[in-house]
């Protein structure tokens, strides 16, 4: 790693000095705009309107993105922006999960805004450096790095030809370059993409933090939607922020006492209860692999099935005992007692350009174990970790890679594609070496990897046009919606989760609503009205985390004692009270639980109208692939025959006696598709939208999202519907 050679090859494009101002009640009160195309750098004020209507985080991202683009803007248009913003609570150290940033752009997969939530240190250090958001617009001719020195007040854009592109190498290079010492490395945070992001639509961004105990750079991801592809398309190689002097009151909160008191209470509960609940401190989100299998909810073989006899090979205790290092502080921001960012140390890679290297693998998260594992029929923990590593360093969204590879394997098994089309890759379920080679091809920009990198929606088009595939079959089994691949949960048996995926703004990512157990197992939301209420409250509540710079996991991955005696235990009321207390402690705004939801409603409806403006926000765009609703094939029906036959009698009112499997599949399908449409009707009504999916003018005024340019889009859509 010749750091001096890299420094010597840098060419300065532009530099701006700025004054260091204190943060006030969670806001730096200005944002940083950089045009990578013309090299301009400027400061913009955060206005009272921005704070009132958009709050911060994803709100600021969408606000700036709306201004930047037109309805004709594509993901690779120069005017598309990437905006990174933390939010007013981002950076506190007293409560867990307070280091998040949100990243927004027009997605290569969907053509509408994507928002992606990410940990690591970049978000907080950006704010402490004096910026509530960073806007990146334009396209450079050559690879550039943007550096922000938050102590000296410098923003610098430089051509950077010599550094690597892959995340784990570049993260290490830049941390080494900008840190004054080993101790200082924790004050440097880097954003990278990777080589595969240059050749695919499913690229992600890596956000680093330096792990002092491991003496290694760790990677967290803004995974969904192809933001890394936009990053590399703009020829941005990396962003670096450096800030020395992190401490607990840098947000200059209105009142630190309730923030500290709330945090202490939470930490005590975490220490006492986590080992009896989800074991987040031991294994992180992967704790649910075996649970999902036992409840027939683990996506298996392209979401066909909910479990597999070989899941024991990849259950969480295997990773705990053999791979993931225990007992190290694994929080991705200071003060996180949930500390769920697990890693496998000294993991030797068996394939690819880094074969033989012993690396730190950040993971596995549940999504990786399910997506790279069971959904592809892969039950080898070594392979899962290797796929996990390469997805991260090449900057490929592991969720999308899992779902698109599962789709490819399903198509291969069905004979829709073959070895001639895949260039010899035998992409059958379980072939981990073929899956790894597909990933390496994405990095190299060659072979079938280029086709796979278009995502499921791109492959559907190609397979129909080039290989004569039946579009209706691909529509049924291709698990994407609005262009984004489904994340790794089985919605098939939960009508509420079908809506939790299908009725999102960005596409089928579960960060709006995760209702499978509440619906399917607990049966707590049996009516359409119950489901609609859940599909209003939970997306609004969860959106709030993205406005303020918070991680959702501390909300409900630990449950306080006594929660079961509350009126609405699924909401975890004590933790909601915590967030209200912390928000008011930081900002002084005196919000209550209702206003919390109202804040989210404004941004949520704004995003819906943004989608409408970009041509993809109406009822037709909320349609879903049938595999997300029910059994597509006789094989799937037969795997749950007893359940489906019983439902046919009890719910549909038809006897399955004497009927062929194909007839039963058709009867079930007709019923389930009708149920989904009824759900849409109920949810739209609850959300204040028309049956066509347009927020009404009355509703927009009621919630305070009544900006003239927003109402104009709504009115136009309402007129067109009439």
């Amino acid at each position, binding site marked *: 790693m010749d750091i001096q050679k890299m420094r010597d090859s840098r060419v300065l494009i532009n530099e701006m000095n700025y004054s260091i101002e204190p943060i006030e009640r969670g806001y730096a009160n200005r944002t940083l705009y950089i045009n990578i195309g013309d090299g301009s750098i400027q400061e913009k004020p955060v206005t009272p309107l921005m704070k009132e209507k958009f709050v911060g985080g994803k709100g600021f991202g969408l606000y700036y993105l709306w201004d930047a683009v037109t309805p004709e803007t594509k993901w690779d248009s120069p005017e598309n922006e990437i905006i990174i913003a933390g939010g007013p609570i981002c950076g506190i150290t007293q409560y867990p999960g307070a280091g998040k940033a949100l990243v927004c752009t027009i997605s290569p997969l969907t053509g509408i805004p994507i928002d992606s939530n990410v940990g690591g240190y970049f978000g907080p250090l950006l704010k402490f450096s004096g910026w509530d958001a960073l806007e990146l617009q334009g396209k450079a001719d050559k690879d550039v790095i943007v550096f922000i020195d938050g102590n000296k007040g410098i923003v610098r854009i430089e051509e950077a030809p010599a550094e690597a592109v892959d995340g784990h190498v570049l993260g290490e290079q830049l941390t080494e370059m900008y840190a004054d010492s080993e101790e200082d490395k924790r004050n440097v945070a880097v954003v990278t993409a990777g080589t595969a992001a240059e050749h695919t639509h499913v690229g992600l961004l890596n956000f680093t933090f330096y792990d002092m105990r491991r003496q290694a750079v760790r990677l967290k991801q803004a995974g969904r939607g192809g933001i890394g592809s936009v990053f590399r398309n703009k020829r941005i190689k990396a962003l670096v922020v450096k800030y020395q002097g992190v401490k607990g009151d840098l947000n200059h909160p209105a009142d630190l006492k309730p923030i500290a008191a709330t945090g202490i209470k939470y930490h005590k509960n975490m220490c006492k209860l986590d080992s009896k609940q*989800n074991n987040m401190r031991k294994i992180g989100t992967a704790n649910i692999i075996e649970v999902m299998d036992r409840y027939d909810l683990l996506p298996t073989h392209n979401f066909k099935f909910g479990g597999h006899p070989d899941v024991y090979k990849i259950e969480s205790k295997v990773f705990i005992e053999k791979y993931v290092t225990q007992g190290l502080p694994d929080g991705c921001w200071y003060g996180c007692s949930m500390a769920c960012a697990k890693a496998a140390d000294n993991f030797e890679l068996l394939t690819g350009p880094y074969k033989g290297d012993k690396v730190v693998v950040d993971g596995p998260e549940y999504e990786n174990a399910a997506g790279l594992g069971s959904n592809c029929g892969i039950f080898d923990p070594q392979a899962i970790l290797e796929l996990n590593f390469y997805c991260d360093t090449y900057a490929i969204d592991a969720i999308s890679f899992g779902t698109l590879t599962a789709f490819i394997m399903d198509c291969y098994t069905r004979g829709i594609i073959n070895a001639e089309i895949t260039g010899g890759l035998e992409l059958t379920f379980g072939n981990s070496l073929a899956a790894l080679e597909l990933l390496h091809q994405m990095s190299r920009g060659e072979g079938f990897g280029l086709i796979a990198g278009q995502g499921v929606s791109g492959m559907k088009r190609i397979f129909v046009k080039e290989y004569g595939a039946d579009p209706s079959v691909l529509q049924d089994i291709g698990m994407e919606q609005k262009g984004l691949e489904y*994340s790794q949960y089985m919605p098939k048996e939960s009508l509420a989760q079908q809506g939790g995926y299908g009725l999102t703004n960005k596409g089928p990512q*579960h960060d709006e609503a995760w209702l499978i157990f509440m619906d399917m*197992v*607990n049966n707590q939301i*049996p009516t359409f009205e119950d489901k609609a209420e859940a599909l209003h409250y939970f997306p609004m509540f969860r959106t709030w985390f993205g406005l303020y710079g918070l991680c959702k996991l501390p909300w409900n991955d630990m*449950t306080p004692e006594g929660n079961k005696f509350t009126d609405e235990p699924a909401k975890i009321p004590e933790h909601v009270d915590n967030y209200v207390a912390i928000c008011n402690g930081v900002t002084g705004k005196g919000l209550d639980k209702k206003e919390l939801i109202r804040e989210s409603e404004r941004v949520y409806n704004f995003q819906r109208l943004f989608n409408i403006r970009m041509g993809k926000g109406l009822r037709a765009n909320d349609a879903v692939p049938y595999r997300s609703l029910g059994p597509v094939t006789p094989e799937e029906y037969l795997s749950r025959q007893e359940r489906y036959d019983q439902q046919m009698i009890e719910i549909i009112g038809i006897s399955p006696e004497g009927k062929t499997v194909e007839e039963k599949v058709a009867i079930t399908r007709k019923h389930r598709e009708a149920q989904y449409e009824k759900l849409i009707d109920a949810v739209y009504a609850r959300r204040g939208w028309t049956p066509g999916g347009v927020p009404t003018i009355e509703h927009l005024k009621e919630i305070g999202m009544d900006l003239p340019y927003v109402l104009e889009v709504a009115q136009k859509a309402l007129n067109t519907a009439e």
Partner: protein
Amino acid sequence: MITVNGRTMAGLEQKSIEEVILLHYPYAKIYVKYNGRHVEPEEYPQLILAQGDQLQVIHLMAGG
């Protein structure tokens, strides 16, 4: 008829709540209501299900 989470479930008569949980509900983060009353884990072995009983086994599964 015995219902669990609002659905009839056959074969539960004379089974303890503990047996039902072990058989059907492997997730740790649950709470149980038996005929509308919260019950603690130490009661599970002693409570035997009979016709007309209503059991709720509520999972606080958070998801990703």
